[in-house]
């Protein structure tokens, strides 16, 4: 509906005008561009070094911003009462959340696009060989961080403290990369309680390992459609949980 788009648009505007935000992105770009200086100490492997470092830095910087904005989102608006100005208009809580999440995801997309474009320019300049893999890497970074957005908003709605929301979101980001190890651990342990907990975690944590395309050691042919469906499914379920919690929340 139109109002959802309006909320999304406004969220994007807010983020773009946020000075802290822009400074951060600018700093990130600066760091990425300075990876060129690694050329001298990379001994003919500068393409690999700039490529790997660049992609890592893009994810790192956009991740930090994403965690911060999504985890503090609802908390900030609730504490500052500005949420009343929206919920007393013809906007339901579901619409509000959906609009906010949409706005954040588009912001993430724009950030990755800008930084990815600049890194692409650097790589071309350094005469590195760039294939479609680069684009896939960026897309998967986008997928990963979209999940971080909804996880962040979820904690923002559950928690009352900015710090815990941020910390939990960050922890889930890290754990999501190690879920296979978690599963292996669960298989080894005999204690039923611990085993069940670990298996449960394995099921609900986001599968960041598979989404970590840029870190695939060798090329494998992936079913892009299925993985996209996974991301969609995960987004949907998390949004539903957010809606349920938020509808009950006292503001």
């Amino acid at each position, binding site marked *: 509906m139109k109002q959802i788009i309006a909320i999304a648009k406004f969220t994007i505007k807010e983020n773009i005008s946020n000075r802290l935000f822009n400074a951060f992105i600018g700093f990130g770009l600066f760091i990425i561009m300075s990876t060129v200086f*690694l050329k*001298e*100490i*990379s*001994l*003919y*492997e500068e393409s*690999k*070094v700039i490529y*790997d*470092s660049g*992609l*890592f830095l893009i994810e790192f910087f956009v991740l930090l911003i994403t965690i911060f904005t999504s985890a503090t989102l609802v908390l900030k608006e609730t504490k500052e009462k500005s949420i009343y100005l929206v919920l007393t208009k013809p906007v*339901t*809580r*579901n619409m509000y959340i959906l609009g906010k999440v949409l706005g954040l995801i588009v912001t993430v997309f724009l950030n990755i696009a800008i930084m990815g474009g600049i890194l692409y320019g650097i790589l071309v300049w350094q005469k590195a060989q760039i294939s479609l893999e680069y684009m896939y890497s960026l897309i998967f970074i986008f997928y990963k961080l979209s999940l971080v957005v909804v996880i962040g908003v979820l904690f923002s709605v559950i928690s009352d403290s900015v710090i815990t929301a941020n910390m939990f979101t960050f922890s889930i980001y*890290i754990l999501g*990369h*190690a*879920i*296979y*190890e978690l599963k292996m651990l669960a298989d080894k342990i005999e204690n039923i309680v611990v085993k069940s907990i670990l298996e449960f975690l394995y099921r609900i944590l986001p*599968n*960041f*390992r*598979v989404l*970590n395309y*840029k*870190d*695939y*050691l*060798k090329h*494998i042919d*992936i*079913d892009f459609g*299925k*993985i996209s*469906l*996974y991301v*969609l*499914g*995960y*987004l*949907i*379920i998390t*949004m*539903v*949980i957010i*809606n*349920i919690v938020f*509808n009950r929340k006292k503001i």
Partner: protein
Amino acid sequence: MLKSRIYNIIVGFMGIIILIYVSSYMGNVEGELYRMQYQGEEGKSPITINNKLMGFKKFGSSILWIKQVLDVGSFDYKAERIKENSEKISYLDPYFISNYYFSGTVVALIKSYSRYDYGFEILKRGLKYNPDDKYIKNYLGGVAAASKGDIESLLISFESILEDVRDDRLMNVVAYIYEEKYKKTKNKEYIKKAVYYWDKMQNAKEELYQKRALKKLDEYRKYN
């Protein structure tokens, strides 16, 4: 409120179905990715485990690569250290082939190290994870030849590598051998070959080789 509750239930259900549908595929990919990783303990350290668990193996391997280049270039470190560095890199990314070429030849061919055993270990590991690589076998062959003092086999192995791969160390070794051959036999063909390699080494990234190349080219100017 009822409307939104129904909406949530239906959509939530859809989401669960989607996830169930893709879950086995995701599991397969996970398994494949896991099996791709380095199977072994060599190179395991707090840093590398960290990198591996947090999902930036390639970035970590790039940084460790830079560290390795700097360590080798500073001539301060023992062969053990070079080998350890190489193991850490291969622990994270066993398909990073230059790691084996570089580290393997450094520990084996540099006179002050001369650790052929380390060289073999590194290069064999490289072969294990990259059996289709064109040059790794030649590297192994060349290092094996060097360990036995078999100059001719060494030259064959290394020169075939140098046709396609840029490796300043190998060039240095080969040029040196040709220079020695020339000094013994005075056969101009040999010095021409040496000059050919020194010429290529003029823009070597490792300063040592660059300087040597320029010096030698100057010395044997007439054969340029």
